[in-house]
């Protein structure tokens, strides 16, 4: 059974269709990256897939259960969500921010069961945040904060992890670090779905790409199957060269398509 299955998701706001007839499945152990130009409906699709938005048509199954029928707590125990990172409201210590990932299990900062504390410790180790536990969140660099948010999501230990542009505004080293953490999270057996803007990053780390344009899914498959010069021109409007290299492809962007 797929971890996540969407069937014909359609959603429009103020008369403008944002997502049309989007169907896909996510399998455990796979890092799926959702790519597409600005305004193509990626963030909306994520929110629909998580049941945070009610679709106009279509349905979403997480572990075979309709997502809109789940309580917020039950849903959060199946799917962890990292929205586009916004500053924390309060400069809480890193340990407490990560502990909030256990919210759906009844935990809160300062009151963790043994099981919650163990999950938090595993997330801290996975994101290499040992030594940061007592640091106030507002003293961290962008890359460190991105790892804290990821650790918060991992601490929920859900079969599904969904993230919206987790590497935006990070320098290249941090981008690769965070992308590797996502890949590791997937290869531990989760299904991971993340929006990424950096195509070289997508080509390097994704097990599978879902391409979106104007609210529709226009391609869905492995990097080798779907990454082609014609598709990059059609979806992103860029002139790019795609060359097979090693087990994957290498990408050279020349500029906007003429």
């Amino acid at each position: 059974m797929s971890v996540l299955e969407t069937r014909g998701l359609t959603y429009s706001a103020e008369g403008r269709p944002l997502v049309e007839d989007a169907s896909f499945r996510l399998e455990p152990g796979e890092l799926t990256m959702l790519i597409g130009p600005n305004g193509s409906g990626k963030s909306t699709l994520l929110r629909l897939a998580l049941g945070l938005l009610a679709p106009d048509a279509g349905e979403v199954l997480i572990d075979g259960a309709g997502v809109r029928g789940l309580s917020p707590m039950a849903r959060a125990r199946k799917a962890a969500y990292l929205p586009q990172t916004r500053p924390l409201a309060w400069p809480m210590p890193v340990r407490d921010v990560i502990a909030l990932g256990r919210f759906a299990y009844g935990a809160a900062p300062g009151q963790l069961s043994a099981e919650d504390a163990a999950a938090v410790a595993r997330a801290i180790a996975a994101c290499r945040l040992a030594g940061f536990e007592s640091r106030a969140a507002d003293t961290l660099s962008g890359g460190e904060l991105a790892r804290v948010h990821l650790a918060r999501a991992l601490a929920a230990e859900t079969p599904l992890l969904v993230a919206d542009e987790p590497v935006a505004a990070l320098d290249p080293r941090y981008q690769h670090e965070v992308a590797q953490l996502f890949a590791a999270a997937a290869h531990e057996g989760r299904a991971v779905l993340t929006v990424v803007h950096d195509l070289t990053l997508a080509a390097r780390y994704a097990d599978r790409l879902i391409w979106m344009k104007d609210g529709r899914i226009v391609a869905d498959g492995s990097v080798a199957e779907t990454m082609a010069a014609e598709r990059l021109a059609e979806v992103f409007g860029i002139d790019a060269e795609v060359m097979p290299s090693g087990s994957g492809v290498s990408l050279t962007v020349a500029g906007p398509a003429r």
Partner: protein
Amino acid sequence: MTARTNALLALALAGAILLALLLGSVPLSPMRVLSALGLQGHPGDTLVVWQIRLPRALAAAVVGAALGMSGAALQGLLRNPLAEPGILGVSATAALFATFVLFFGLAGAGPLVLPLAAIAGALAATLVVAIAALRTRSAVTLILVGIGLSSFSAALMALLMNLAPNPFTLADMINWTLGTVANRSFADLAYAAPFLAIGAAILLATRRGLAALALGEEAAEGVGLDLRRQRLAVILGAGLATGAAVSLAGAIGFVGIVAPHLVRPFVGYDPARLLVPSALLGGLVLVLADIGVRLLPTDSELRLGVVAALIGAPIFVWIAARGRLVR
């Protein structure tokens, strides 16, 4: 650390209430106060302690606690350290509704009319502010809506004062605007207490969600928070508690901003664990301020709300000027 903070604050609050019993215009020795408390002393002493000093001190403690907790909860919900019943116009609107009832002589209809009117005002104002906050998501807009609400309530209050039929009504209204706990009785306390207790219970029961909101509303939903229920709970809880506080003491501002601000570092900036110490510190601040009001040798007694604003407004300016207002 939180438990120790709470214990220390609770101890300090108890000490302040005891101090309030010891001090006053009639000099009473600690022994006489203690025996009066145990109903063993001179009937005159017992009257002073049980009818005047204790209800007044308890009213100050309860009002401060309600405002401190409401401020902490509103700040957690709106993710803004400047949110507070006074700043957001909640206290002023509650005071206006209460004055309205007094003005038209409706308060005679029953002892619950006044608290209910104040609570209705507080709930209406909290709802307006929350809707504005959720529509715009801008802290500046939120504060401006609060200022507008306060100004409008003040204007209507001024109108009622303008039309006041006699100086006694006018004096009553001034008391509501300025805020005081002078001459409160156990009966007054008893009528406000149930609403206050329900409000505080709602806030405490749902406080865990405030911690989740530190992540932002979208991520809070992601970790399993029922956002609509959380908003409703805080609006209802803060409205009930603030309304009950206003029905007891009139509009007293700034307690709800100062108390959470001071204790926040001691609870690791956790908006959930902030509620109890904010309530305790809010109570402590008002009991101490009320002792000051009683001891200051002024011709006419200073109003508690005036003193609270004199201390609180500069702190508000300080917090606002340190930035982090716009997010």
